[in-house]
């Protein structure tokens, strides 16, 4: 049973037709075509699917797409200003916080949400905020230092 809906992603309204059980990550990737958001575990464990709903990080693999009607969804594509990367994204590149890259969109979204609420976090606060995002490459040290560097650049 298809349900007509409009989802607002990165400030753009997208008319879509979705099944009642379609998860938000599938709608974002398959129906809207924004593939920055990754489906990793598809079980609310790894954080690769992290998006912001009304400014707060949410695992989009475990959220029904139709529940997001009326909310502002932000994906990793919404963090850059056109071709200009955000401070946070630049810091990930500078610090080597990206290896295979699969976790990176989710890491960026969680870190972006943290810095919106807490512009000058301690490293422990950064690590706790990224606790729901798994990375199998970096060992997290360079990711944490990238977030710290981005925070210092903006305060």
């Amino acid at each position, binding site marked *: *049973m298809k*349900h007509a809906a409009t989802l607002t992603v990165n400030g753009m309204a997208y008319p879509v037709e979705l*099944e*009642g*059980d379609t*998860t938000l990550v599938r709608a974002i990737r398959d129906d809207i075509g924004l593939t920055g958001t990754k489906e990793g575990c*598809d*079980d*609310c*464990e790894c*954080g690769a699917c*992290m998006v912001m*709903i009304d400014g*707060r*990080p*949410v*695992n989009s*693999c*475990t*959220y*029904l797409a*139709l*529940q997001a*009607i*009326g909310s502002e969804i932000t994906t990793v594509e919404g963090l850059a200003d056109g071709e200009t990367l955000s401070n946070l994204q630049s810091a990930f590149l500078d610090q080597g916080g990206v290896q295979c890259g699969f976790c990176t969109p989710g890491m960026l979204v*969680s870190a972006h*949400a*943290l810095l919106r609420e807490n512009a000058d976090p301690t*490293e*422990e606060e950064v*690590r*706790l*905020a990224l*606790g*729901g*995002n798994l990375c199998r490459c970096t060992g997290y040290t360079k990711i944490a230092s990238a977030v710290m560097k981005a925070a210092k650049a903006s305060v």
Partner: protein
Amino acid sequence: MGDVAFHTVTTVDEALALLGDGSDARVVAGGSDLIVQARHGKSLPGTVIAIHRIDALRSLTSSGDLVVGALTSHATLCADAGVRSNWTAIADASALVGSHATRNVGTLGGNVMNASPAMETGGPLIVLGASVTLRSAAGDREVAIEELWTGPGKTSAKPGEICVAVTVPAQPALTGSAYVRLEYRRAMEIAIVGASACITLDDDGNVAAAKVALTALAPTIIRSPAAEAAIIGTDGNDEALKAVTAGASADAKPISDLRANEDYRRAMAGVIAKRAVAVAAQRARGEEFPIPATPVFMKGSGQ
């Protein structure tokens, strides 16, 4: 997953009308339990009723009794100043649920009705004497939290009832509470074992009343009468805490599974219960203890 009709409602009455007798419909709040279960073989019902836009269920009152609308998120609960100071075990527990993302969508009502024996907020609600309000077409009824859970994933709620609120009574003076979890990691963790304690002191600093609950140590979250008896009437000295350890281990009914075996769970039941009682007593004396009371084992945490 299959062919699913989806409705978003803004009032409890609309939800109840769609829910009918509850035979082929379920409500979804944050979705963090329902969607995961749907992926693990329990298919979604024919009708899903999204209740997350019912603003009336998002209220949080913490003057006098604590009245928590069922849709209140863990993120809201663990940040609330009233909850942190007067019903601290609930703040401990809410702060440990999942990750930031889980706490943003996960609700207290959903947590309670999902009835996991490993849920974080359950033990605190037991030791603080909470009840839930279940609403149906026939009206509201109040159920003591210990009467709600009947088994893993099972409640005494009838099909067609919706949890609308959780009420926790105001606590006496000189009362402190705590929830402590044994965990292998901080985020996205399920309790290996957990323990909750609520301690009320008399004017001489002795324990006048105590409740202890054990999490992930039986088919439902249970009280530990032996641990409670061991601490009541004492000044919380080391001997009494040793007896709490033995009492909680004796009352535990653990299973072996992939996270821990029965013997380890039983041994840790005592250790974690002792810590919960000790922290609750400290808080009852007015001493500060960090929230959550479960220490973070990481570089530089100093705990």
